[in-house]
């Protein structure tokens, strides 16, 4: 373990390299640019490839291409670029291609507030592309966690053959903090499962599988002359409009995430045991919340924090279990997004603290809000 002072953008880059990422395609955009800059430095040194493409659409495409050719691949962007990548995020879901997409959230909508933080893209991470599709989205909050969650993002992407979205915000991206970097031996890497060589392609029906399993697909150039398809396809990957086949693969795509959601879910429960009020917050907002919990605890107020690290699939069961019938305060750096899910899952009203003016919610704001609620 080494301690290094780095901003979140660089942390992600270093973690990606450690996770085995060897391809990055991107297009510059504030506040994610330093991530690309760092990758452009690190990748050639390990024989990897960095390319600045002509736009975000092409970047997403190139990353998918490299992944299909066998590389762990990633791209990073911010709001406007994230919108542009949506079509190809759906493609990666459809083709079941592993890829990691980092979205460093800034104030929106549109060009918005490029140098200010926000959490306005969390629903977009789930619903931004057309059509039903499975997605995983992670939202780390602390420097070392950013490092570890980046690695987990690659692991999940490779394991489930699905795009994984890593969400941070401008504060986390730009604040230099102490990162505890584990030694290579201390981290577990998931390597892509490939069909053994020499099988008869027509036999092994690669998209076919037990419900809940990810598919076992070959890489390009592995000898299977495999077909990756953006149309609805059959179990061999070829286009079909047969409703049964269409439904079959759609179900398999959902099931691989759905059935493993307990493993994918990750959250922090902070001083929840005796809490009378539970804050629901994620990302940098959760840090202010945690600070506020400490301050309120010092005053004797029984407050705790539920901090989802996995945003999607939404942690329905852990949330329900963690909060029970207690008061809930949902805090977000937006006009209310994850609160929809919280209300839906808890089936009741919650208190809210939203802010979307380019400035973070401070611990003081939390303290005042909670004093009013208790």
């Amino acid at each position: 373990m080494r301690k290094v002072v780095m901003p979140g953008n660089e942390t992600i880059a270093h973690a990606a390299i450690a996770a085995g990422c060897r391809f990055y395609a991107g297009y510059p955009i504030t506040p994610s640019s330093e991530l690309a800059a760092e990758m452009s430095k690190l990748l050639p040194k390990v024989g990897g490839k960095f390319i600045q493409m002509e736009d975000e659409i092409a970047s997403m495409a190139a990353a998918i291409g490299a992944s299909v050719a066998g590389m762990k691949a990633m791209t990073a962007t911010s709001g406007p670029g994230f919108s542009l990548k949506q079509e190809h995020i759906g493609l990666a879901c459809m083709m079941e291609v592993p890829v990691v997409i980092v979205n460093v959230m800034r104030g929106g909508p549109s060009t918005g507030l490029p140098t200010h933080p926000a959490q306005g893209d969390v629903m977009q991470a789930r619903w931004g592309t057309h059509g039903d599709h499975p997605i995983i989205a992670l939202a780390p909050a602390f420097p070392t966690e950013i490092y570890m969650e980046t690695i987990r993002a690659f692991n999940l992407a490779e394991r489930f053959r699905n795009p994984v979205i890593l969400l941070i915000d401008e504060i986390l991206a730009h604040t230099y903090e102490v990162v505890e970097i584990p030694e290579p031996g201390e981290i577990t890497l998931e390597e892509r499962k490939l069909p053994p060589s020499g099988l008869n392609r027509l036999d092994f029906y690669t998209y076919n599988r037990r419900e809940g399993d990810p598919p076992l697909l070959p890489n390009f150039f592995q000898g299977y002359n495999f077909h990756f398809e953006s149309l609805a396809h059959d179990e061999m990957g070829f286009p079909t409009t047969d409703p049964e086949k269409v439904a079959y693969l759609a179900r398999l795509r959902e099931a691989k995430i759905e059935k493993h959601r307990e493993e994918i879910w990750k959250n922090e429960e902070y001083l929840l045991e005796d809490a009378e009020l539970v804050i629901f917050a994620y990302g940098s907002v959760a840090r202010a919340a945690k600070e506020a919990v400490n301050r309120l605890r010092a005053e004797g107020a029984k407050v705790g924090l539920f901090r989802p690290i996995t945003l999607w699939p939404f942690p329905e069961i852990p949330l329900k279990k963690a909060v029970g019938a207690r008061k809930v305060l949902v805090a977000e750096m937006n006009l209310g997004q994850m609160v929809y899910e919280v209300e839906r899952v808890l089936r009741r009203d919650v208190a809210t603290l939203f802010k979307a003016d380019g400035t973070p919610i401070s611990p003081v704001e939390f303290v005042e809000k909670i004093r009013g609620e208790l």
Partner: protein
Amino acid sequence: MKEIIHYELRFSAIGGQGIITAGAMLAEAVVQYKGLYAIHSPRYTAQVRGGPTKVDVVIDKNPIYFPKTTDVDYYLATSEKSFRTYFQDIKEGAIIVLDSNLVEEFNDPKYRVYRIPLIETAAKEIGNVVTVSTLSLAVTAKLTGLLSLEELEDFIPKRVPKGYEDINLKAVRLGFSLV
């Protein structure tokens, strides 16, 4: 050195690369030599380059939750414009260090104000204006007690670009002697 539980610093300047570096070095050094937690965040902006800029440093005994300054204990500024622009959330009793040539008179009994000709000293006495970052760091270390002279003498040569070790060591020592 008094025990640090939580300490917030701000450095501001025009143009500012040097002063941003001072903040970065400070954060790195306290992590390295004191086992404290530290963060620093330069101001990002899509606006004027070469205009007022700043860096905030937060130091804490424990992992830092809220990564922003809210009550600044120490504020160093090397230009009038930047000093005014970022004069926010400064705590009562805070230490304020101003470049005596570049910042106008500022007298407020709520603060402990020091006036030092930082840039002039770097340029003329040390001989290279880029050492203003080390100089400011040293002044800060001394005034706050966050780092000792010995620690900086160890840290600085490893941190600065090759070939600049000596003048920066000079800056460290001068900084400690100025206040």
